[in-house]
């Protein structure tokens, strides 16, 4: 117990047996040695724990080990590292190092690392160990205590955020406390502060002054304090307050400085904030003022200066009343009272006065200012200038006026009533009028209105109930007005102090409402009426409301309507959907749907016809529109009936065989039935409509028609018969009845005519009449009742009376010739009347003209009830017959006379007439036999009277004679050849009749004539027929037909016809109509007809198998009359096929060419756009190269030396050259595409122009231009040729001493050769081929510049002109370039010729 140390935990332990020692040793021998030594030591009772490695020692770190005996060389740790580790595991234990070496360095290091002592292993014994352990324990405890003290200091500094430091002024070394480190955010283990390094962390702006202040403090005894900023490593900026003093030695030299540093960033921040708030206050537009409780102004911001016009200096210390107007001085007191009681005043609107005396409207917000103890020490006031706002309010007032809204207020305390100007206007009072409360009420109309407002005011005052009413007032001027009054009350302490409200003139609105109400009422009446169905509908098909009538119409109930069962769209049959759509569309367009007729399904499924009109409602209405529905079933029924009857009538009309017409009351045609049109042959009635009927009838009938129309218009039917042609000219007889119809109050509106076609009847009558007239048969009739007699026209003619003659019964008899005839007829008539005996007599009459005639009279009677009513009969003129009979009688008497006459007749005839006996022996031969045959009767008799027949005909003749003999009275034709007297045969044609049995003739009569010519013609025809037939049959694939005048085939030949499906058998003898299919017939007929008219026509046809060409050839006789048509048909199928193939080939070829051309066009176009865009895109960079080089040259030329300038020049030059190249290439490629436009070109003029205007020719160059031949070509292109040639000549001769150029032309045949020669550098003929190719040059650029395109262009142009180019040259001896062009084109020749 050497140390009398203060009690401690560790200390205690050293005394007890609880002392725990940990031996860390891997060598068991050493461990044993230490154990033994410990047993010998004063710590023999201590507990020794052994660990043989670091890990084991770590495991034991929880043991309360007081001391460690530590071998540094462990299997898992070595050297000083072991100490560091152990210090971590056992922070509060003392450490003694066991070392085998006598190594002071290690020992010293060990102390550094926190060991307390060390022992050499070879020195260990009980004594040494005792001393070392004790010493170590004590030292360890001392250090622990020191550490605790230090820690307390650190904690104190941390809490105060005050760090401490000391600086050795001789070395400027600095020692910092932990808190200082913390403030600087530095790690004590890594940063050793020096005065200089400390300065590194000071804010750069503060560094200088900090250093200065520090240095200055050395010579002062004062206590120093500065505030500066520092910037930590992480960039935090902190405000630091440093305080320090300097200690000096006895000689007054400064030795050390001790100081503190404090982080004052937080308070600095607060300061800044404060400053910021102040700034805000000052910059506020509102005036912010504070004053103390006495009302003295203590602060005054910028806003206040602006608002009130006083500056801060002027006003500070003044009383607030300075800005309060005189009449409001009391206000401030009230405010103070309120503030004094701790309340704020919010947005209190009042007036204040400015320095300049102007009153401004302000809104004040006033709050108390308290000290920290909560005592009120002043008032802050925010004042806002609301003058502008007030203006707005004024504006509002005006708006109110517009809306006729006025305000009023009643102050129950003061008993005053305020009315705004508008309110007064509404009441029509004078502007100065001030009402009291009861007066206000008295404006309301007496009765309901006034009662109501009185009650409202009462409840408002008593219970605070607000009101809003629409009532009527009577204005000061006595007008009745609707107003809306709104009132509300303000209560204070359960008592109403004032009430206020607005007042609005709603008179107009009310009136409008009233009107609306009235119209609604009206509407409602309609709605409720039983006449019209009304529904409210929407586009969805719903019917939201309807009246009873509608329900009645559609058979639904109210219940159905309520349940939403009525849908107009579902009620609408499908066929009306479109109509509905139309209606909706109309509504959309005009708002109204005109009435439409449609149907609805009733509830029971039946249909009801309705008339519906609809309209939209205004937008506010729930339904889209309203519709009015009328049940028109009855009307529809009536209509249907009407239609049915109309239909019935129409059917009758249409089916009537007569022509029925309806005419208006002026006789214009209104209607004609279908059959009528047919009868009248009218295609379209419209062509007749509204024409006057009589105009249809033709001039001759006009009067009678007009008369009948007139008659019927007077109410009487009329009848007439007339003859009139139809529209197409068919002559017809008409029987017409015209009748009036529909007689109305205004007279007859329409008339109807029924015209019956009586043409046939008429024709029959006419026929009868004509027959009668021919037979001279007339009729007559005698009516015994009326006593009238009728004679037909013929009867009258027979009697030769006038047509108007009307006989009576006795007169009729008196025409009979007196005597036998009259007696007889009198008798007949009597017997007929009395007994009904008919008569038929041939008697004589004496006509009115006195002629005696034979007539045949036939009579009969008609009896009724045994009495003769009438008798009638016919009357025939038989005078001629009688005469003939008499003639025959006379003839018989004069027979010989007659025979002579007969003979003369026969003998003068052209025909031969022969009479022969039964053996064909002639009885009579007419004299012209000799004329025709050459034989006289005598000669024939000599020959035995046999007509010398052609041998070929003899047999036939014999048979004929036989036939004649056995067939009496039958006329039998014959034709034979007889031999003429002159030897040739003649054809005789005729007929014979056997009249041997006839007593008067007793012979065979033959008549015949010479038909030789016809026969010969026939023969010719026959032969040509054979010819055709032969031709036709010998041409394969052909057919020939001959067709006679009656379109009958009489010759059919050729194999083609059979191929076409016809056979000769079918065709021959038949007409074309019989054998050709109808469509073919119709098709061919026009050709036949043309052929018969004498034209030749051709036709091509194709039945799908054969293609044929038909030729219709008329065959004409000697009179040029067509007697037959020949049709030649040729099979051209193969030909056609070939033609088609060629045509197809041609089409294909054309298409191919077209396609190729298109492709070519496309390629050309592509090429064009390619070259264009290439040139465009190439130029832009070139321009830039050139331009920028130029800028460089212009702006920086002084910076370049000569070589630099040269190089720049090369850049520019090449860029320009490239540009030229592109231009040339473009021109060249364009030439390939360009069409040349030729005209007569004066080449001399062109060359002159080139020399003068296009090319620069040096003055020393001699140019000889001969007159050149003009040429037919494109002048622009040819000019280019000259430009290129001449400029080449100029260029290549430019280096010659005396440049010479010659331009000439010579005529060579029909071509012109042009040449351009020079005496320049020439060229080697070996390369002549290359001259005219693109980019081919014979000279370097250094020699002569060029792009190598010029001559290629020339070549192209000349070739386009169908010419050629070439050149001749010799190196150094010049060159001649030629081009040759055709002198004249055909076109020019033509032009020139025509000019001549």
């Amino acid at each position, binding site marked *: 117990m050497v140390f009398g140390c203060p009690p401690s935990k560790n200390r205690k332990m050293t005394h007890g047996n609880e002392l725990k020692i940990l031996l860390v040793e891997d060598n068991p021998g050493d461990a044993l040695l230490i154990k033994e030594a410990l047993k010998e030591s004063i710590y023999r009772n201590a507990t020794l724990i052994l660990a043989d490695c670091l890990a084991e020692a770590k495991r034991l770190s929880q043991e309360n080990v007081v001391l460690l005996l530590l071998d540094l060389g462990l299997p898992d740790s070595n050297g000083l590292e072991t100490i560091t580790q152990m210090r971590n595991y056992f922070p509060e234990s003392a450490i003694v190092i066991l070392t085998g070496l006598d190594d002071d360095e290690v020992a010293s290091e060990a102390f550094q690392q926190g060991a307390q002592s060390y022992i050499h292993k070879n020195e260990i014994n009980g004594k040494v160990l005792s001393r070392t352990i004790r010493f170590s324990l004590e030292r360890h405890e001392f250090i622990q205590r020191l550490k605790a003290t230090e820690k307390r200091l650190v904690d104190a500094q941390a809490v105060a955020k005050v760090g401490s430091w000391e600086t050795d002024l001789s070395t400027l070394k600095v020692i910092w406390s932990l808190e200082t480190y913390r403030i600087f955010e530095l790690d004590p283990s890594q940063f050793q502060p020096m005065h200089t390094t400390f300065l590194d962390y000071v804010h750069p702006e503060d560094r200088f002054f900090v250093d200065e202040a520090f240095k200055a403090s050395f010579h002062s005894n004062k206590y120093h304090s500065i505030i500066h900023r520092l910037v930590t490593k992480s960039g935090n900026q902190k405000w630091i307050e440093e305080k320090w003093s300097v200690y000096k030695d006895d000689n007054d030299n400064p030795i050390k400085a001790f100081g503190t540093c404090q982080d004052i960033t937080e308070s600095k921040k607060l300061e800044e904030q404060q400053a910021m708030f102040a700034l805000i206050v000052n910059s506020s537009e509102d005036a912010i003022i504070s004053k103390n409780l006495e009302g003295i102004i203590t602060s005054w911001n910028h806003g206040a200066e602006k608002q009130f016009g006083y500056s801060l200096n002027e006003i500070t210390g003044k009383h607030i009343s300075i800005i309060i107007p005189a009449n409001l001085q009391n206000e401030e007191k009230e405010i103070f009272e309120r503030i004094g009681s701790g309340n704020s005043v919010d947005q209190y609107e009042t007036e204040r006065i400015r320095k300049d005396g102007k009153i401004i409207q302000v809104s004040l917000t006033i709050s108390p200012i308290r000290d920290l103890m909560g005592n009120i020490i002043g008032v802050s006031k925010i004042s806002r200038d609301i003058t502008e706002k007030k203006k707005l309010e004024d504006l509002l007032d005006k708006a109110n006026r517009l809306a006729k809204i006025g305000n009023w207020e009643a102050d129950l305390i003061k008993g005053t009533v305020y009315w705004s100007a508008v309110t007064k206007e509404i009441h029509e009072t004078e502007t100065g009028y001030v009402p009291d409360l009861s007066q206000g009420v008295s404006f309301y109309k007496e009765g309901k209105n006034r009662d109501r407002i009185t009650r409202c005011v009462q409840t408002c005052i008593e219970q605070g109930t607000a009101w809003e009413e629409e009532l009527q007032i009577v204005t000061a001027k006595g007008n009745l007005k609707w107003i809306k009054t709104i009132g509300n009350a303000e209560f204070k302490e359960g008592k109403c102090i004032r009430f206020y409200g607005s007042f609005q003139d709603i008179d107009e609105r009310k009136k409008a409402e009233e009107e609306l109400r009235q119209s609604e009422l009206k509407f409602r009446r309609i709605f409720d009426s039983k006449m019209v169905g009304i529904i409210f509908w929407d586009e969805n098909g719903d019917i939201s409301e309807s009246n009873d009538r509608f329900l009645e119409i559609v058979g639904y109930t109210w219940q159905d309507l309520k349940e939403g069962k009525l849908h107009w769209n579902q009620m609408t049959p499908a066929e009306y959907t479109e109509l509905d759509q139309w209606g909706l569309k109309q509504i959309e367009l005009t708002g109204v749907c005109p009435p439409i007729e449609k149907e609805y399904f009733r509830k029971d499924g039946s249909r009801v016809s309705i008339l519906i009109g609809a309209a939209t409602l205004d937008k506010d209405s729930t339904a889209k529109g309203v519709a009015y529905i009328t049940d028109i079933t009855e009307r529809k029924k009536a209509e249907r009936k009407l239609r049915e009857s109309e239909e019935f009538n129409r059917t009758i009309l249409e089916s009537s065989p007569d022509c029925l017409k309806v005419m208006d009351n002026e006789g214009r045609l209104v209607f004609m039935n279908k059959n009528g049109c047919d009868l009248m042959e009218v295609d379209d009635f419209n062509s007749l409509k509204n024409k006057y009927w009589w105009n249809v009838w033709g001039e001759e009938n006009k009067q009678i028609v007009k008369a009948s129309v007139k008659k019927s218009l007077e109410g009487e039917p009329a009848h007439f018969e007339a003859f009139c042609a139809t529209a197409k000219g068919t002559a017809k007889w008409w029987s017409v009845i015209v009748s009036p119809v529909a007689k109305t109050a205004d007279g007859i509106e329409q008339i109807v005519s029924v015209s019956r076609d009586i043409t046939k009847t008429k024709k029959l009558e006419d026929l009868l009449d004509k027959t009668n007239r021919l037979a001279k048969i007339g009729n007559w009739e005698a009516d015994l009742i009326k006593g009238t007699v009728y004679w037909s026209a013929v009867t009258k003619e027979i009697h030769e009376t006038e047509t108007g003659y009307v006989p009576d019964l006795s007169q009729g008899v008196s025409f009979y010739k007196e005597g036998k005839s009259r007696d007889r007829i009198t008798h007949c008539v009597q017997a007929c009347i009395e007994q009904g005996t008919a008569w038929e007599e041939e008697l004589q009459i004496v006509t009115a003209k006195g002629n005696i005639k034979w007539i045949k009279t036939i009579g009969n009677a008609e009896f009724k009830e045994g009495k003769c009513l009438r008798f009638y009969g016919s009357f025939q003129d038989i005078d001629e017959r009688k005469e003939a009979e008499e003639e025959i009688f006379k003839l018989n008497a004069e027979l010989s006379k007659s025979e002579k006459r007969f003979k003369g007749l026969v003998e003068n005839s052209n025909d031969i007439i022969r009479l022969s006996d039964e053996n064909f022996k002639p009885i009579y031969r007419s004299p012209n036999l000799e004329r025709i045959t050459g034989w006289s009767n005598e000669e024939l008799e000599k020959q035995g009277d046999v007509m010398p027949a052609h041998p070929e005909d003899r047999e036939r003749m014999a048979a004929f004679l036989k036939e004649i003999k056995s067939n009496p009275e039958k006329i039998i034709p014959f034709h034979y050849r007889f031999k003429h007297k002159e030897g040739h045969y003649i054809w005789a044609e005729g007929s014979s009749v056997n009249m041997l049995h006839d007593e008067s003739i007793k012979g065979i009569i033959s008549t015949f004539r010479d038909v030789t010519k016809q026969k010969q013609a026939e023969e010719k025809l026959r032969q040509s027929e054979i010819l055709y037939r032969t031709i036709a049959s010998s041409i394969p694939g052909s057919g020939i037909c001959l067709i006679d005048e009656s379109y009958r085939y009489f010759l059919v030949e050729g194999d083609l016809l059979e191929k076409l499906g016809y056979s000769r058998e079918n065709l021959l003898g038949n007409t074309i109509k019989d054998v050709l299919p109808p469509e073919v017939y119709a098709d061919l007929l026009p050709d036949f007809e043309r052929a018969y008219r004498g034209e030749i026509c051709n036709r091509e046809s194709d039945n799908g198998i054969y293609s044929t060409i038909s030729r219709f050839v008329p065959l004409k006789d000697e009179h040029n009359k067509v007697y037959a048509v020949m049709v030649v048909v040729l099979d051209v199928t193969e030909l056609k096929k070939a033609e088609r193939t060629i045509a197809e080939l041609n089409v294909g070829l054309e298409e191919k060419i077209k396609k190729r051309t298109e492709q070519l066009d496309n390629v050309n176009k592509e090429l064009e756009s390619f070259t264009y865009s290439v040139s465009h895109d190439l130029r832009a960079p070139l321009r*830039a190269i050139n*331009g*920028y080089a130029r800028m460089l040259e212009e702006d920086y030329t002084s910076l370049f030396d000569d070589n630099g300038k040269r190089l720049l020049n090369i850049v520019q030059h090449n860029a320009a050259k490239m540009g030229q190249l592109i231009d040339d290439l473009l021109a060249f490629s364009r030439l390939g595409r360009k069409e040349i436009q030729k005209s007569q070109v004066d080449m001399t003029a062109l060359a002159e122009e080139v020399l003068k205007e296009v090319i620069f020719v040096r003055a020393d160059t001699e140019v000889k231009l001969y007159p050149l031949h003009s040429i037919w070509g494109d002048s622009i292109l040819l000019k280019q040729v000259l430009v290129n040639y001449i400029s080449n000549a100029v260029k290549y001769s430019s280096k010659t001493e005396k440049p010479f150029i010659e331009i000439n032309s010579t005529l060579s045949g029909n071509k012109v050769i042009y040449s351009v020669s020079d005496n320049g550098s020439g060229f080697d003929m070996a390369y002549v081929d290359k001259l005219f190719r693109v980019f081919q040059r014979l000279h370097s650029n250094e020699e002569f510049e060029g792009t190598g395109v010029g001559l290629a262009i020339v070549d192209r142009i000349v070739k386009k002109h169908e010419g050629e180019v070439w050149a001749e040259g010799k190196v150094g001896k010049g060159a001649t370039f030629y081009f040759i062009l055709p002198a004249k084109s055909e076109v020019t020749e033509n032009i020139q010729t025509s000019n001549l």
Partner: protein
Amino acid sequence: MNTNEIEILLIEDNMNDAEMTMRSLKKSNVSNKVLHLKDGEIALEYIFGTGQFEGRNINHKPKVILLDLKMPKVDGLEVLKKIKSDENTKAIPVVILTSSKEDPDIKTCYSLGVNSYIVKPVDFDGFHKVVAELGLYWVLTNQPPV
């Protein structure tokens, strides 16, 4: 620059050409009132006071518009068409700047009513001369229809 003082509107997408044009105009002392726009779209916006030139007083019209044909987005032809089909702008002289006189669009330009066209020569001197004269003519000499 105050867009109301613009006298020459240069519409050109090739920055090199634009620079050269501006330089040439500058040498003629007319460049202070030149506005260079880089494509047809923005040019139309300027001319009709839309887009980024919304609200520009379009009654102030440039004395001349120099218009390149080949441009991205809206090409010169279209710009020309729009200018010449609007009553308000059709009197503004438009000069087409083109790389080649072979430009197939030149014909179209004339049919659309272009006032002139110039071929941008590769040769800078030529280019400078043309542009300078052009600027002088249209800005100083030409009297626009009132």
